[in-house]
């Protein structure tokens, strides 16, 4: 729905965007501050970037977080896709309501509860079968998969409902057995949702502090845990530098995504023009 935008709405929109972006812009600016006290300007400097790169702690945390994020995103996409398929395409089955509930609950469950329950679960499991003896990479990854697969499932469900069943029916009509329909038609059609699901799971994992803090063990610090332990005591210019780098990485990714999408749209437009020319 389009329509006229009143002055009040324009003002609210402008204020809203300012509210969203000014803190981040300031965060970036102060990362180049020479002064040790973040809000006191001491001239331009790259000092904090240098100090950041000197810290092996930071590198370890980045590496651990990325490993967890990649493994999590891959497993969560696989599991979330299966769950989405089961919910949308397999009709009624026993336990469907429970399954659906468990799929939506992680989206809104307070992180402290999820984190706490997984921690006591891992401890009890350790008492029972002796695994996990140590908490860290494995436990954080399992915890992340559990909540990110819910997000992936929602993405996949939306795509499955959106694309309808006609293509799958057409394949069945042409003699494709259900499993073949899944591999030849459904999965290829889901590709965009699989990609966005993977990226979403990846980001969620990189962003999580609370659940990781609960289920981690000594020595296994993810990047958010490291950042949190530092900023808890107050402002830290090296964290500003780290934030700037992360924002930069995201900006680059977004730019790449935008270029890919733009090209795709242009290709689509050319295809459409080609088709229309021939019709006339």
């Amino acid at each position: 729905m389009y329509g006229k935008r009143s002055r009040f709405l324009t003002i609210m929109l402008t204020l809203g965007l300012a509210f969203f972006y000014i803190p981040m812009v300031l965060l970036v600016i102060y990362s180049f501050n020479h002064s040790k006290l973040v809000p006191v300007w001491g001239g331009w400097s790259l000092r904090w970037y240098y100090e950041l790169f000197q810290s092996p702690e930071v590198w370890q945390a980045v590496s651990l977080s990325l490993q967890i994020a990649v493994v999590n995103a891959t497993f969560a996409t696989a599991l979330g896709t299966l769950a989405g398929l089961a919910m949308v395409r397999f009709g009624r089955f026993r336990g469907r309501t429970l399954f659906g509930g468990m799929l939506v609950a992680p989206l809104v469950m307070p992180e402290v509860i999820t984190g706490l329950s997984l921690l006591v679960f891992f401890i009890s499991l350790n008492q029972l079968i002796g695994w996990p003896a140590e908490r860290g990479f494995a436990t954080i990854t399992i915890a992340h998969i559990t909540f990110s697969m819910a997000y992936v499932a929602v993405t996949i469900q939306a795509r499955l409902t959106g694309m309808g069943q006609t293509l799958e029916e057409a394949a069945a009509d042409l003699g494709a057995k259900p499993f073949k329909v899944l591999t030849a038609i459904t999965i290829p059609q889901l590709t965009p949702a699989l990609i966005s699901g993977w990226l979403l799971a990846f980001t969620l994992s990189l962003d999580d502090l609370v659940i990781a803090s609960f289920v981690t063990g000594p020595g296994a610090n993810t990047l958010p845990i490291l950042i949190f332990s530092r900023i808890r005591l107050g402002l830290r210019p090296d964290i500003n530098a780290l934030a700037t780098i992360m924002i930069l990485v995201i900006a680059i990714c977004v730019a790449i995504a935008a270029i890919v999408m733009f090209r795709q749209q242009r290709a689509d437009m050319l295809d459409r023009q080609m088709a229309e020319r021939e019709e006339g």
Partner: protein
Amino acid sequence: MTDVSHKPSPTSQGSFVSLVMRRIQSHWRQIITVIPFFWLLFFFLAPFFIVAKISLAELAIASPPFTKLVEWTDSGIVTIRLVFDNFVYIWEDSLYFDTYVNSLKISITSTLLCLLFGYPIAYAIVRSGPVAKPLLLFAIILPFWTSFLLRVYSWMGLLADQGTINNLLIALGIIDEPIRMLYTEFAVYIGIVYTYMPFMILPLYATMEKLDNSLNEAAADLGSRPANTFFKITLPLTMPGIIAGSLLVFIPATGEYVIPDLLGGGNVQMIGRVLFNEFSRNSDWPVAAAVAIVLLFILVLPIMVFQYFQGKASEEQ
């Protein structure tokens, strides 16, 4: 529950592989359903039951710091007494009770603030032109992809005694002494509204986008003034978005830990923070588990309402 596949004893590698392949071919639907289903049963649902059990245990000087489940299930009577122990403790200790109340106060107020500011923003985006609309939407979604922790951190720099806002106000001569903003409830409100606003705007946008502008035109044509049209037509029709957005803010905000910890310091008590600290410092796990169970109990109704709307929305598609 541990092993769902019925493994045959393989006579040779080849026949085993082909047998597995055949099994997958004929039971793939069950396999597809069972794998995520059991993952969730195991790693999502089962942990809650363990928390519930621990909340019924008593503190012990051990690692982990609670009495073993087997010991206290020996006698039913003991169990019932222990139920009262942890939960009655939470009820009677004013610290916990007040913290629950305070958490709800903060999350409800923040939800209303998000709605108050988010609604006009969503409406403004919906009414934007075809070029501006996707860009504005993108601008709202973008913060999602940046670190939540760093977004909260950015406000520490703004609100600190020596922070940007105070420095600016002093430089402009408006104030002489810095106003204390960081480590107050005000800062917590700012933090929650800042980080949860997109969760309010996006569902609102989704419902508003579906509304046909000709409804507004029809109302105007029938003599309704803009304000009347808004309250009689637009607002009722966007109710699903309001409910979804409000629940998406209210539920996680109630259990929020990072924002009260970083922006509220020790001055703002919220239940998520108490829970976290109970676990990491006091190590009174049975009480912490009971605190979590009570929090879950408070949020069960809103979560179920959310699921109901979520299910209805996906059916409508």
